[in-house]
C-alpha cells in the first residue's frame, strides 16, 4: 500500500493522542498525530525539547500505549498487539540506537551486538558470529573483543548500531544518536546510518536536536507542542548518490 505522497509506509500514525496523569493533573503531550514513516527512507523527527518527540517514538516502538488513535506497523494495527505478542513483535521488527548507547558493560562488543539474536533464541555461537560480521560492516572488526569501557563514544555508538541491525529489523529507531558524540564522531555515525541502515525494506527513524544531521534525512518531520508542524523532503537521498559516486563504494567500513 502506498501513501498519497508515494512510498510504502512502514509506520502509519493515525490520530495518535497521549496523555500523562489523571484528573486535573492530566497533561496532553501528543495532540492527534497523523504521520507516516516510509520504507527505504531515513526520516528525521526534529523539534524543540518537550515537544513530544520521545513520546511519539516510544509509542511507535510499542514501548508506550497511545491514549487515543492507532499505529500501524508494517500493516499490523498496534491495537492487535499486546503483552507477549507485542514484546516479540518489537524484538523481531525494531532495532534501537540510544543516545547513551546502552551497551551491557560486562559484554564485549561482539557479545553486545549479538544480544538481539540471543533474545530471539539463536544459539550464542551463531549469534556472536553474525554480530562479528555486523561489526565488520560498521568498521569495528578489530574491536570485537573489547568491552564498552575500552571503546570511545563513537565506537560504542557504532557497536550500538551493529546491535540494532544484527537481527535485520524492518524499523530502526535512533534516539539522539549523535548527541553524546563530538562533531567528527557524530558525522561518522550519521554516514554509517545512511549507508548501512537505510535499505529498501527498512525504515530508519531518527530523533535529533542536532542541526548537523538534518542534511542526512530523506524526510524531516518537525514537531512543536505535541503536534506535527510540517513534513518536508530532505537532502539525504541526494547526499547518498553524490557520496557513492564520489567514493565508488557502497558501505562505510567495507
Amino acid at each position, binding site marked *: 500500500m502506498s501513501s498519497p505522497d508515494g512510498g510504502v509506509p512502514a509506520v502509519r500514525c493515525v490520530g495518535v493522542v497521549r496523555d500523562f496523569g489523571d484528573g486535573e493533573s492530566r497533561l496532553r503531550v501528543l495532540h492527534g498525530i497523523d504521520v507516516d514513516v516510509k520504507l527505504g527512507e531515513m526520516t528525521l523527527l526534529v523539534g524543540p525539547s518537550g515537544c513530544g518527540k520521545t513520546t511519539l517514538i516510544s509509542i511507535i516502538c510499542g514501548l508506550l500505549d497511545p491514549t487515543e488513535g492507532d499505529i500501524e506497523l508494517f500493516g499490523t494495527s498496534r491495537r492487535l498487539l499486546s503483552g507477549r505478542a507485542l514484546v516479540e513483535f*518489537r524484538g523481531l521488527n525494531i532495532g534501537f540506537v540510544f543516545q547513551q548507547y546502552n551497551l551491557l*558493560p560486562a559484554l564485549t562488543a561482539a557479545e553486545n551486538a549479538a544480544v538481539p539474536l540471543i533474545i530471539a533464541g539463536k544459539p550464542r555461537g551463531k549469534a556472536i558470529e553474525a554480530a562479528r560480521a555486523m561489526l565488520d560492516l560498521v568498521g569495528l572488526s578489530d574491536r570485537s573483543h573489547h568491552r564498552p569501557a575500552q571503546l570511545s563514544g563513537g565506537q560504542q555508538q557504532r557497536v550500538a548500531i551493529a546491535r540494532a541491525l544484527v537481527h535485520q529489523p524492518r524499523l530502526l529507531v535512533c534516539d539522539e544518536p549523535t548527541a553524546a558524540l563530538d562533531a567528527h564522531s557524530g558525522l561518522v555515525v550519521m554516514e554509517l546510518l545512511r549507508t548501512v541502515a537505510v535499505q529498501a525494506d527498512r525504515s530508519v527513524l531518527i530523533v535529533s536536536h542536532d542541526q548537523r544531521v538534518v542534511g542526512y534525512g530523506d524526510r524531516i518531520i518537525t514537531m512543536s507542542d505535541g503536534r506535527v508542524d510540517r513534513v518536508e523532503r530532505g537532502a539525504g537521498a541526494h547526499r547518498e548518490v553524490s557520496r557513492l559516486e564520489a567514493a565508488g563504494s557502497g558501505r562505510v567500513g567495507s
Partner: protein
Amino acid sequence: MNWIAWKMLTGDRAKYLGTIFGVAFGCLLISQQSAVFVSILRRTASQIVDVADADLWVIDPQTLSIDDLWALGDNTVLAVRGVEGVEWAVPFYKGMVTARQPSGHFRQAILLGLDDSSLVGAPRTMLMGEVADLRRPDAVILDKAGYRYLFPDEPMELWRTLEINDRRAIIVGICEASPPFQSLPILYTRFSLARDYAPKQRRELPVVLAKASPGVSTQELASRIEARTGLATLHRREFAWKTIQFYLRSTGIPINFGITIALGFIVGTAIAGQTFYLFTIENLKQFGNLKAMGTTNSRLLGMVLLQAAIVGVLGFGFGIGAAAAFFEGTKGLHHMAGFYMPLEVFGLTAVSMAVIVFLASIMSAWRVLVLEPAEVFR
C-alpha cells in the same frame, strides 16, 4: 538469556563479590549465633545425653531439670525393679561438690555416682585408664576438660589425688564427656562413694535409671512405673528437653540469645537482601534495555532468579563454611568445647537464606517487571 544473566552478574567483579560477601555475612551471622545458642542449650542437658545405656529416668515429679533434682526414697530402686517390663534399674547420683586441688585451691565440680555393680552411665570414651578401675578404693574418673581446668598446663597423668569433702579421691582415668553448661569438671565415681563425697542429706538418691525389657516400649514402661511409684518417668530425650525448657524459662539465655539471633536475622536479612536488591536496581537500566529489545517479563524474572540462585548458593556456601570453620577452629578451646554446628541449624540457615534471597530477588524483580521500557529513552 541465562548466559547474559551470568555475564551481568559477574561482569563487575567487585560488585559480584560484594553481593556474595553480603549474603555470606548474613548467613554467617544467622548460622553462627543460632549454633552457639543451640550448643549452649545442649550443654544444659549434656549429662542426660551422655547416659546412653538407660532408657528411662525416674525422678521426683517436682524435679525441673538435671541441675534441680529432688531426692527419692531409698527403696525407690527396688520399687522400680519390681515393675513388670523393667530389665534393670540402678541408682544414679548427680550433685555438686567442692574439690580441693593439691595446691590447696578449691574448685566446684559435678559429681556423677554410678551403680557400683553395673557402672551404668560410665563415660563411653576413655583417654587414659579403664572404666573398671572405678571399682578401686577412692577411685574417680575425671573428664579431659576438667583435668585441664584443675591442672592447667600440666601433662595428663593418672593416680593424682584430689580431696572431696575431706576424703581422698584418686584419678584412675581420664575421659571424654560432653561439656556441661557451666564448664565445670565432671567426676565419675561409684554411687556408694558419691554418697560419701557429697554433703550429708537425709535422702541421697536423686535418680533411678531403668531399661525396658525386650519387646516392652519405653512409653508403656514409663506409664507403669509412674502408676506403681507415683514418680515421674521420662525417656532421656524427654528429660533433656525438660531441662532445656527449664533453662529457657528460668534464665535470660533465650531473651539475650533470642535478641542476638533476631539481630543476626535482621542484620543478615538486611545485608543479604539489600546487597542483592541494590545489585538488581543498579542494573535496572540494563534490564530496561533488554526489555525494550524484546525480552519478555518471564525471561527477565528468570534472569533475576538465576542471579539470585547463584549469589544465594555461593553466599550460603561461604557463610556456612565460615561458621563451620569457626567451630572447627575453636573446638580445642576449653570454654568452647561442645560448641558445634547442628544439622538443624545448617538446614534452618539454608531455608532462611533461600527465603531472604528469594524475597530480595522478587522485590527487585518487581521493579524490573513494572519498569516502563520507554524509560530507555530517558
